[in-house]
């Protein structure tokens, strides 16, 4: 009987032997490295896929052309380690279906001969895609799927440069602790989360942290995603009136939640959001006037441009394509491709196992990213534990970094409706 790791290693070795010939040939002919991208391009989350396309194409521009930016793989045109080879992206649509995601991963690997895959927003799809890439010995970068279960499956080809839900929620509670220490009254929290994998994961961690750190959960509301009406749900929060409302909602529900709160005359004392919908421009376009003082956790903050030149330049490049600033999702997607390109550059190879080893050896200081991270250095499990998130506050129509204090641009307004 083999143990799991032996089977996986054996499989990977077999792959590398089998695919060496084909991949080398393809590379020699085209001087091109092909990378697969799997996102929802149709269906309820199609906008995520469309935005991801803009983000990844921005990253592609950075890699394939010379830019005077201190970012991985951006300096030279193409990949210096591979004689200036360019990267080509192949996009695939998973429609939020794990089976389709897997089928697309197989197609990208076997037909398009991709050297690595980036995806996939939905954690459920990342689960099947990463199982497939593991079996084919092709690295998978989970750019923005944040379920903690993903990196706990002993996988060698899975990498996540950004934070997972536990890190995100921990930062949120660190902030609450800091506020409390500074003399603010924060005793109760209200959980409000959608019923798919994102909301469930997020709320599970938040519930645990609240109990551990002595906050009373006065409302714990799981609602059906994309529901036509949230009146009863909001009424319940209003009755409980927690000191801090912690919503985990996608765009549609975030819009409906804020509108319904307004309609029911409910002004939450504070909102501390688990990004998602609360980092989407669409939400602030519509209900931004009601969200003054909202704080959201984030993987990214535009105001870092003041300290780091590359952030502003990259954001402008992205904005030219997408018509909006980089946000929580798009920044992670963009950065994921840069980190991958850097690893391919160092691997000097188009082959999965070599790129995998280069990824495992990645060590990029935070200053060379557009993120507030300390560094990019993957653990044994493929998770980057140094990707600490920040908290940003929506003040005067734009986001300001308010936590942790090391990167904060301004002190937080607390409570949110103070001004």
């Amino acid at each position: 009987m083999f143990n799991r790791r032996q089977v996986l290693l054996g499989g990977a070795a077999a792959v590398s032997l089998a695919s060496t010939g084909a991949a080398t040939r393809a590379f020699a002919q085209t001087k091109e490295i092909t990378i697969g991208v799997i996102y929802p391009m149709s269906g309820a989350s199609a906008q995520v896929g469309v935005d991801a396309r803009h983000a990844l194409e921005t990253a592609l521009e950075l890699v394939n052309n010379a830019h005077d930016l201190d970012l991985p793989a951006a300096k030279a045109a193409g990949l210096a380690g591979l004689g200036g080879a360019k990267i080509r992206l192949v996009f695939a649509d998973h429609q939020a279906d794990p089976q389709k995601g897997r089928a697309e991963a197989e197609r990208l690997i076997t037909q398009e001969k991709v050297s690595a895959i980036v995806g996939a927003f939905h954690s459920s799809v990342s689960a099947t895609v990463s199982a497939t890439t593991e079996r084919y010995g092709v690295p998978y970068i989970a750019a923005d799927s944040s379920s903690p279960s993903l990196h706990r499956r002993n996988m060698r080809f899975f990498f996540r440069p950004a934070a997972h839900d536990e890190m995100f929620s921990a930062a949120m509670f660190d902030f609450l602790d800091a506020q409390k220490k500074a003399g603010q009254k924060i005793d109760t929290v209200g959980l409000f989360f959608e019923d798919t994998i994102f909301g469930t994961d997020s709320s599970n961690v938040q519930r645990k942290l609240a109990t551990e750190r002595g906050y009373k959960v006065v409302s714990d509301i799981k609602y059906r995603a994309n529901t036509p009406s949230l009146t009863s749900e909001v009424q319940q929060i209003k009755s409980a009136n927690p000191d801090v409302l912690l919503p985990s909602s996608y765009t549609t529900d975030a819009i409906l939640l804020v509108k319904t709160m307004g309609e029911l005359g409910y002004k939450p004392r504070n909102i501390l959001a688990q990004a998602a919908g609360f980092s989407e421009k669409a939400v602030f376009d519509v209900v931004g006037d009601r969200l003054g003082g909202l704080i959201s956790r984030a993987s990214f903050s535009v105001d870092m441009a003041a300290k780091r030149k590359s952030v502003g330049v990259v954001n402008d490049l992205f904005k030219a394509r997408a018509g909006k600033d980089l946000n929580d999702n798009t920044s992670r997607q963009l950065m994921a491709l840069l980190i991958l390109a850097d690893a391919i550059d160092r691997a000097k190879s188009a082959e999965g196992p070599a790129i995998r080893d280069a990824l495992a050896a990645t060590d990029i200081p935070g200053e060379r990213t557009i993120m507030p991270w300390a560094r990019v250095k993957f653990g044994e499990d493929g998770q980057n534990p140094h990707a600490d998130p920040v908290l940003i506050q929506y003040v005067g129509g734009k986001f300001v970094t308010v936590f942790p204090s090391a990167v904060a641009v301004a002190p937080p307004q607390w409570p949110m409706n103070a001004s």
Partner: protein
Amino acid sequence: MTLQALLQVLASGLLMGLIYALIAVGLSLIFGLMDVVNFAHGEFLMTAMYAAFGLWLLTTLDPILLAPLVTAFLFAFGALAYMGVVRHAMRVDANVGMVQIFATFGLAILIQGVAQYFFTPDYRSITGTWLGGRTVEFAGIFLPLPQIVGGLVSVAAFGGLYLLMSRTDFGKALEATREDQGAVALVGIDRNRVFTLGWGLGAALVGLAGAVMATFYYIHPQVGGPFALIAYVTVALGGFGSVFGALAAGLIVGLVEALTAMIFPPALKSIGVYSLYLAVVFIRPSGLFGRL
């Protein structure tokens, strides 16, 4: 749960119920006329919302003023859908119901694709309207103005529909056609024409609902789905083909949904409506007001 909270939930549920009824009645009308369940009903609603959004972008008029235009647009849209798609699906006698489901399902996907093609899958909203964001407060109960107006429009639409059905030749032709499709040909009613107008009317009603909803709801290519499911249940609960069954059922669905979310975990709130439907049809197999 305080009494005030309960009243608030009931009032909100009632307003939402009026909207549900307005969305559902078009479906019921078409069904009563020709035994067709339109699987693209949610996409008709979505089309109406995008029509309101598009017209608002073009004219910058308030969406409430645009509602008649949207309604007229959807009338044409529905009539075209009948002439271009449904009419052909009715040619064969065998398994006609399934072919229509299939054809309208294809239409639904097509409309979603077209919406995504022209408007991108981004979430849209109409902002800065007269009604938007205004709320009426009465004894601690908050009623948003857009929904109040939506409810009034719904009531007016049902009133108008009643007059149309009972007072006009078209209404009588509709009624006669649904009673006996074969016999109407003998008295000189062009069945095809009645069907075309019937689809137009059904779509116009959901168009009105869409125009109203566009003032307070987000818009994107998938927005119709959840409403369509509620509309099917509402129509069946009220009794297929019964216009006023749809009104009663819409109100009941709105109330039950709001109350279930109050008492049970909100994630399960649809179960209240679904169970009610099952309970009703197990006792009355043709819904509350339906004829078999």
